[in-house]
């Protein structure tokens, strides 16, 4: 599965299903369990249909609009949207950090 076609092509995977969605939705649309299930169901059929290496498009189209994607990028102040590179675990929440430290 993958949503960056040119990067998939560069990697030359044995079997790949291309889902033409924005990054962050490689397993299906947001808050749409039926849509996610269908993406995965159709994606997995590739195991049975590929007879040679290649990349095939899935039939799903992104119809959720790009405003959501634009909004999340507006929150980034720089053209460089990467987070700083560091060697400290980057927890999603403080509670995650506390629980992990208790377990270690």
């Amino acid at each position, binding site marked *: *599965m*993958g949503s*960056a*076609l*040119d*990067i998939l092509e*560069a*990697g*030359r*995977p*044995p*079997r790949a299903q*291309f889902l*033409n969605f*924005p*990054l*962050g*939705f*490689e*397993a*299906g649309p*947001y*808050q749409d369990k039926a849509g*996610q*299930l269908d*993406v*995965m*169901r159709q*994606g*997995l*059929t590739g*195991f*049975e249909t590929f007879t040679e*290496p290649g990349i095939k498009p899935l039939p799903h*189209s*992104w119809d959720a609009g*790009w405003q959501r994607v*634009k909004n*999340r*990028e507006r929150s980034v102040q720089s*053209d*460089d949207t*990467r*987070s700083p*590179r*560091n*060697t*400290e*675990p*980057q*927890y*999603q*929440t403080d*509670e*995650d*950090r506390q*629980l*992990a430290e208790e*377990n*270690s």
Partner: protein
Amino acid sequence: MHPCIISAEHPRNEAEEQSKPMSPVKYIERTRETYDKLGYPPYRWFQAESAPAFTPVTKPLAESRLGMISTAGTYLQGQVAYYYKDDTSIRAIPKDAPTDKIRFSHITENYLVEARQDTGTVFPLQSLSRLEEEGFIGELANEYYSCMGGIYSQNRVVQELIPNLEAVILKQDLDLLLLVPL
């Protein structure tokens, strides 16, 4: 792997936005443009030099055992999160893990805004379980594996990350392995 993806991914103008179906986004070209704009040397994307190995599938999906690797920096609450400088470690995520305990730490975390509210957009745990219940998939591995796909060093991917994954995946007695990148 998507070692580095920067710059906007959405259509650049209204005409592009309104065109249906949308053309695939040219991430490599856009990354090159953004690096140039920032004054960085060109990013060296991985380019496979040889044709991929192709192993024919011998069993129907409904009779196969399937595993999954996520590169979204997926971790389970209680586990140590990933760090962002070439972290080549991996995490095991039980297939029956509660979705409200699924977390993500990935250097391009701007792509995870929605996934942190609905983990199924990048980590299809519920979809796979449903397909197993239906009999569409024969059997799922007991655990899935994750890594943090934003590793800049191709050498470290080859020499550390892939062996880390290979060591655990080969013990799972899988017929099929699904890769879901971020």
